[in-house]
């Protein structure tokens, strides 16, 4: 119980101290900044509350694009991993290709998607899809294949075919890995969506908002977009954590660790 209180209080105190230091100009002194270069928290908060409806609309545009891309990308990624599992020899080579694809800088994709899709939303979804695909494929593949050999032997001994092994053994085993991939992808899909808006001809969305407001030197408004984007990310992340807690109660990572 005391530990739990400490777990909440320590970070909270640190956070408040940090915001205070920012509010009262410690950062400005340290980095030799003028107030207009780095707006203080109270200014950001008041700007945000004044422009809340607009910020939320833009946030909705970006997040919906990010989520659609996340879903499509995860489905494709999982399918790649599943196919690679059914054909181990060729699938392994395919996974090497996917790993290489994962190292390709996303930003480089953004202009390509610009060429392929004329519409800002499609383009955003395209970038996010590619980004999420690789991480999901890699994690799903390791979840589907890092299996206790005895379990496979057991399945073979009861004459289970490959399909039964897949649905009864590999799929449940891969669940924790799928959640890991989704958690990775939540953050990267939002980032990818924002970046693609920097380069697209879109006139709505968080990325557009950040770029546009900075160009107009409206720093506080730019910062409030960042705040909204971060909050959206944290909320989505927490939703995934809750789903994960319910879905894989049996897994070791979910058990209470006693110190």
């Amino acid at each position: 119980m005391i530990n739990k209180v400490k777990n909440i209080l320590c970070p909270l105190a640190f956070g408040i101290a940090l915001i205070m230091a920012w509010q009262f100009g410690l950062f400005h002194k340290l980095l030799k900044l003028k107030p207009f270069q780095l707006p203080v928290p109270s200014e950001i908060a008041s700007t945000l509350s004044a422009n809340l409806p607009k910020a939320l609309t833009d946030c909705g545009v970006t997040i919906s694009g990010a989520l659609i891309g996340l879903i499509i990308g995860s489905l494709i990624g999982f399918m790649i991993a599943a196919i690679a599992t059914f054909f181990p020899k060729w699938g392994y080579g395919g996974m090497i290709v996917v790993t290489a694809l994962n190292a390709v800088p996303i930003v480089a994709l953004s202009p390509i998607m610009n060429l392929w899709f004329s519409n800002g939303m499609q383009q955003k979804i395209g970038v996010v899809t590619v980004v999420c695909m690789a991480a999901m494929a890699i994690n799903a593949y390791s979840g589907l294949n890092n299996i206790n050999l005895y379990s496979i032997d057991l399945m073979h001994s009861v004459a289970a075919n490959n399909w039964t092994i897949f649905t009864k053994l590999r799929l449940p085993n891969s669940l924790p890995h799928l959640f890991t991939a989704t958690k990775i992808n939540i953050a990267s899909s939002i980032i990818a969506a924002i970046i693609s808006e920097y380069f697209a001809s879109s006139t709505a969305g968080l990325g557009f908002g950040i770029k546009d407001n900075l160009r107009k030197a409206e720093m506080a408004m730019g910062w409030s977009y960042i705040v909204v984007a971060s909050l959206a990310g944290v909320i989505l992340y927490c939703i995934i954590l809750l789903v994960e807690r319910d879905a894989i109660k049996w897994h070791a990572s979910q058990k209470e660790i006693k110190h």
Partner: protein
Amino acid sequence: MSVAISKKEQRIVSFVWVIGIIVVWELASFVLKNVLHDPMAATKLPYLHIIAITFVENWKTLLEAGAVTFSRAAMGFALGATVGILLAIIMSLSKTMERIAFPYLIVSQMIPILGLAPIIFIIVRDMNVSRIVIAAYITFFPVSVNMLSGLKSVEQDKKDLLFSIAANKFEVYRKLMFPSAVSYLFIGLKIAAPMAVTASILVDMLGSKSGIGVKILYSLYSNSTNLFWASVFTSAFMGIISYYMVVFAERYLLPWQNATPGKDGVRA
């Protein structure tokens, strides 16, 4: 099904994959141009061999631009990795520090830092510095989280043994904790390296004067499509190369380590 695939067979399979991708690409651009008669075919998906020729023709400028971006990424990567490792050590030494810092580590990943690139630029007012800062910021999280889980995974019995022969904390870290955490550290480094390159390219694109990102944007706006695709390929290779540099460093430094440890990295 952990089928043992021989090294030679692996090479053949990968080779066939690469050939297959090239063939599919060439076919796709042929279909787009001659069957679908897309007027933008040469822009949307030019023939792979034309991109290759453009790359060879412009290799000098492309490599120069790549080197600028890559060196900034490397500096940021080194800085971020150092900070990440130090933070992990501090967190493993003190439970209070871990309580304070760990939630913020997670939250820091939710801040779209690449989205912050323009803001960072305004704060530090120097392109190179902002490139390094952003690459470092992106690097430090995967490094420090993986390092921390490596330090924590050391068995208590082993620590007890060392303490029982009167080893002090420093010696325990040097002789036991670091060697066993190092394979975890490399998982983090492998995740971080391509991300650092991505960050560096993005900062290029947002208004630098040199670097591969500038090449991508310029060639796109000046309608030199082949050069654009060649630049995109260069940046893709930079990401892949950075990943394999870490892989080879791991093989060289930790020869006893199996190439693929069965653990997953933590990225977010």
